[in-house]
């Protein structure tokens, strides 16, 4: 056997290094559990939901979505009455038969995430790029939402 089957007892022999791995695994279990749970509230259709970061810059909101291995054409970004939706599908490779798999941890199938945006976004200037498995959506702020400096004269 070329790839050695994971044996929990053997891993424990490498204590204490492995205890951190164990902790990591448990953390991950919790993360994925709560991610799935939260998403069920939002969309019951989603089979899996990619991780997201939302950041704010002076002139734009940046949404980053982790979509490794997803074809660019299989991702759809829509904006409908201030709700930004990222949906698509990650297809399972067809050329390999399922019985040849030793381990499947990666997610496949359709995904769906939605966010309500502040109303102050230039909806016609939204830009999305896909690079190294990360989809980056840039939503420029409308003029009235940008921070302004107002000088007040003291009399």
């Amino acid at each position, binding site marked *: 056997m070329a*790839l050695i089957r994971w044996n929990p007892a053997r891993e424990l022999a490498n204590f204490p290094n492995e205890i951190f791995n164990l902790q990591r*695994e448990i953390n991950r279990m919790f993360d994925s559990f709560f*991610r799935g749970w939260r998403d069920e509230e939002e969309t019951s259709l989603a089979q899996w939901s990619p991780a997201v*970061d939302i950041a*704010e810059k002076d002139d734009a909101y940046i949404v980053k979505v982790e979509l490794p291995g997803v074809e660019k054409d299989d991702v759809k970004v829509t904006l409908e009455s201030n709700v930004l939706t990222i949906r698509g599908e990650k297809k399972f490779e067809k050329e*390999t038969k399922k019985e040849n*798999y030793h381990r*499947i941890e990666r997610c496949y199938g359709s995904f769906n995430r939605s966010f309500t945006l502040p109303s102050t976004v230039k909806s016609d200037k939204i830009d999305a790029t896909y690079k*190294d498995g990360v989809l980056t959506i840039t939503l420029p702020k409308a003029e009235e939402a940008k921070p302004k400096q107002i000088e007040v004269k003291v009399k």
Partner: protein
Amino acid sequence: MTALVPYTPTALTRYEMNERVVPPVTDIYETADSFVVKLDLPGATKESIKLQVEPRKLVVQSSITADESMNLLYSEIGRKRYYREFNIGDGINVEGIHASFEDGVLTITLPKTDEMKAREIKIQ
């Protein structure tokens, strides 16, 4: 500017400051002449990935350069670093291991040695 208010990190900033070590999710399958390992490494670049073959061990790691100037409103990705080890047993042609990176997915191909490949035995 003088900070009049003492700085108290919120839950989000604490999360964002700590770089987490994340084991990338992995698929492993077998073909007639090799084992194929696929790892999700979103945000990594070809240059940032370090793939090491040690005796009986395969180590994959990658750092991710985060844009520190960004003010995170909501974070599930945060700051992280990828790390995962795999045991390599007999029957792998270590010299022939090769890898490619596309769309955030690292594909490592581990060719089997000739002894490991399925053979057909001729009936005499």
